[in-house]
């Protein structure tokens, strides 16, 4: 199996981007964005996760489709776990319950 060798320059550029995103999210945490603080922090964390997975973990360069399948299955089940739990707990007080 031939593997793609990524140049060290790519790793350094990815790392610089990760550092910049970290500085951005740390800086933004000093500002009150209301309910958006969470969204912004999680969006930046997602970008960082993608950068690490795609470049440092070589997901972008893999020749084996199975690796993609396994990685996506992991994310799929995790998102089911989080989103289905959230549908319960987030919506609990949306509607008044008679007699409660």
């Amino acid at each position, binding site marked *: 199996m031939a*593997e793609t*060798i*990524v140049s*060290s320059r790519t*790793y*350094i550029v990815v*790392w610089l981007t*990760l*550092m910049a995103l*970290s500085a951005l*999210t*740390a800086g933004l*945490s*000093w*500002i*009150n*964005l209301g309910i958006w*603080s*969470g969204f912004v*922090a*999680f969006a*930046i*964390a997602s970008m*960082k*996760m993608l950068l*690490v*997975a795609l*470049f*440092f*973990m*070589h997901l972008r360069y893999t020749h084996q489709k199975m*690796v993609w399948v*396994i*990685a996506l*299955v*992991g*994310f799929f*089940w*995790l998102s089911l*776990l*989080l989103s289905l*739990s*959230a549908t319960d*707990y*987030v919506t609990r007080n949306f509607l008044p319950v008679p007699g409660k």
Partner: protein
Amino acid sequence: MWVFLVTEIMFFGGLFTAYMVYRISYPSAFDQGSIHMDFWAGTINLVVLLCSSLTMALAVHAAQMGERKKIVVMLIGTLVLGTAFLVIKGYEYHEHWVDHNVPGDALFGIDPGTGQQIYQDPRHTELFFLMYFIMTAVHALHMVIGIGLVSFIAIESWRGRYTRYYHNPVENVGLYWHFVDIIWIWLYPLLYLISHHHATG
């Protein structure tokens, strides 16, 4: 290795879900706990881990190129940064201990200076710190295991065990190391950031 990492995603996923459910259930008690996090310790640790991921990626790169000395140097860099992370984490744990922020402490939430209870809902802020300690301790345990694995492959590479044609162990330990880094990428906003603006006004 990826299959193993998916089991790890589910393992940490359970903890993240528990944290989410409690955070939704007791938002203000969790806010109050979260603002007592040491923002700088968490941020420095994020930087330390991201740097260690870079050295790890460069170690894998050196293994692919078959450069024996460079693998060892990069792995030693990773070890130094990983250890620095644990030292900072240990310092943070000590701070929580001094400040009565360790769950189970009979004086939980009592300010050591004034003797006053600082939390409005100490029992649920205790829950925040319980989640914090479980999640960061499990993460730290993964770091300790990672340091063991990196030490092992550092010794093996020094002995010239890995070549351009055979370096799977280096690649796999790299995957594990980056995964542990991703966990911190998520713990950092969840524990340190999302209530931080309350602390700064």
